[in-house]
């Protein structure tokens, strides 16, 4: 009753909703970098919210299903096929026993989530199945998936061939019109820039040094209004730090707990899914945002997820 890894992909990690309440120990939140695609994958697979999934980075693994399974793939526009049948994303898919799932490149983003009905069985560490790569614990011994790894799953009945329905859901996390550079909304931080609003004045490019800890950006260097030595203070996922080189870093789910750089803003939670999907070389812009607007965007996103859950319940009731 398992999935066997035949080829691991670039960086495939077990992730769930992460850890909370351990930052005083220096322990990062972790968890799915794109919480939206993660939640959709679990919804489509029929899992409870927060079930462990595989988070695929840029290009995916090849997996043999030793038992039939019901799965869902969401995020990144990932290429997928199973036993010669191209698979769509954002739909429930049935995979027969012995099926080999080949995941290709993320064509429209950086991260995809593979959810398996019943969840991937992992022993939680500090309350979560999430892999903390930097600290080396959680998931599969704190490391990415390797060839030969076997992940325990619950088998599915009545699956003899690759199947998926002819409907799909709109997987967009964002109800704003798309086109041009990604726009990430930012709450005011502790530090101002000089001149004010310098963060918003031009576009930034994502550099290859980016990872789950933070997106490192490159653009016209900016400065904090107040210079000088600072003492480390708490930071959180979303915090926009400004190191001395004037190139901002947007902290993500694996953010360290404390940081000494000026904090010039906080990327709003509703835009974390978009941040997680940015690839090295992609461009983004920031726009200022008020707390009420951040809350409204988050609540709209949750309502969209809720509507999708209701629609899926209706589909299942009719099936």
């Amino acid at each position: 009753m398992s999935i066997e890894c035949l080829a691991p992909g670039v960086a495939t990690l077990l992730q769930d909703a992460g850890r909370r309440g351990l930052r005083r120990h220096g322990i990062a939140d972790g968890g799915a970098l794109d919480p939206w695609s993660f939640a959709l994958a679990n919804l489509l697979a029929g899992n409870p919210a927060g079930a462990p999934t595989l988070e695929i980075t840029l290009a995916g693994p090849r997996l043999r299903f030793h038992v039939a399974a019901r799965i869902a793939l969401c995020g990144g526009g990932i290429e997928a096929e199973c036993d010669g049948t191209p698979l769509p994303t954002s739909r429930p898919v049935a995979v027969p026993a012995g099926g080999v799932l080949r995941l290709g490149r993320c064509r429209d983003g950086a991260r995809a989530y593979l959810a398996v009905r019943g969840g991937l069985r992992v022993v939680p560490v500090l309350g979560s199945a999430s892999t903390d790569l930097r600290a080396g614990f959680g998931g599969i011994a704190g490391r990415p998936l390797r060839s030969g790894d076997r992940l325990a799953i619950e088998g599915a009945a009545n699956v003899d061939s690759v199947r998926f329905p002819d409907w799909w859901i709109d997987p967009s996390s964002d109800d704003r019109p798309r086109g041009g550079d990604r726009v990430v909304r930012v709450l005011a931080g502790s530090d101002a820039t000089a001149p004010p609003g310098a963060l918003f004045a031009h576009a930034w490019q994502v550099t290859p040094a980016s990872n789950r800890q933070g997106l490192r950006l490159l653009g016209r260097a900016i400065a904090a209004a107040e210079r000088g030595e600072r003492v480390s203070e708490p930071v959180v996922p979303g915090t926009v730090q400004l190191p001395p080189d004037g190139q901002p870093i947007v902290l993500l789910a694996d953010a360290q707990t404390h940081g000494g750089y000026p904090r010039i803003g906080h990327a709003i939670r509703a835009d974390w899914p978009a941040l997680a999907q940015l690839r090295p070389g992609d461009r983004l812009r920031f726009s200022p945002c008020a707390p009420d607007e951040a809350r409204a965007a988050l609540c709209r996103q949750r309502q969209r997820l809720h509507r999708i859950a209701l629609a899926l319940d209706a589909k299942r009731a009719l099936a």
Partner: protein
Amino acid sequence: MNDATIEPLGEDALLLRLGRGIDPALNARVHALVRRIEAARPPWLREVVPAYASLAVFLDIDPCTDAGVEAFATAGAWLRRQLDAASPEDVDASMQVPATTVEIPVCYAPACAPDLDDIAAHAGLSRADVVALHCAGDYRVAMVGFAPGFPYLIGLDPRLAMPRLASPRTHVPAGSVAIGGAQAGIYPRASPGGWRLVGRTPLALFDPSWPSPCLLAAGQRVRFRPIDEAAFEALQADSAA
């Protein structure tokens, strides 16, 4: 604490700042405030994360309900009152509470202490003097951060202060006892790092399978005790067993 400030830290936390320096008295005020908040256990409290001169209070609320919005406002006002009520007498009393002291055995042999000679040269002291001064210090864990279980220690003898390496090492061994400017710390796990390495402890500082995953917590006292290489190896074997 009229100069104290309170500001949002992202969408579900508030940052309370008492000052901007690395100063034992200021840090003691931070820990007193942490204890005050934790003792009151308000229903919306998720976690308090101390730092040198500030602390973050994480709220466990749902921002998409009226109750959640109300709780956020209530929490801000309540925390403001705690800041205002934390009188100097209060702080003095809390500072007299004897914090638990954790003794950390440290091997200062050259194999464990690649930067000890540089520190000695920088300070104009002998190796033995550096070890003696390092062990004489009465340290306080100002905060745990950077990595799981990494203690930032206040109390380093100012003569031992030395700037970080210009270029960080790609590999610092687990247990390395380090100096970064006026701060002292211990690397729980092998990692890159730019602090000067003066010794190494065989003790494990972090283990996710422990009921409390870190050996050290903010507010505790720490003392270093010198051990030789044989003791280091014996203790390391015990630690691994």
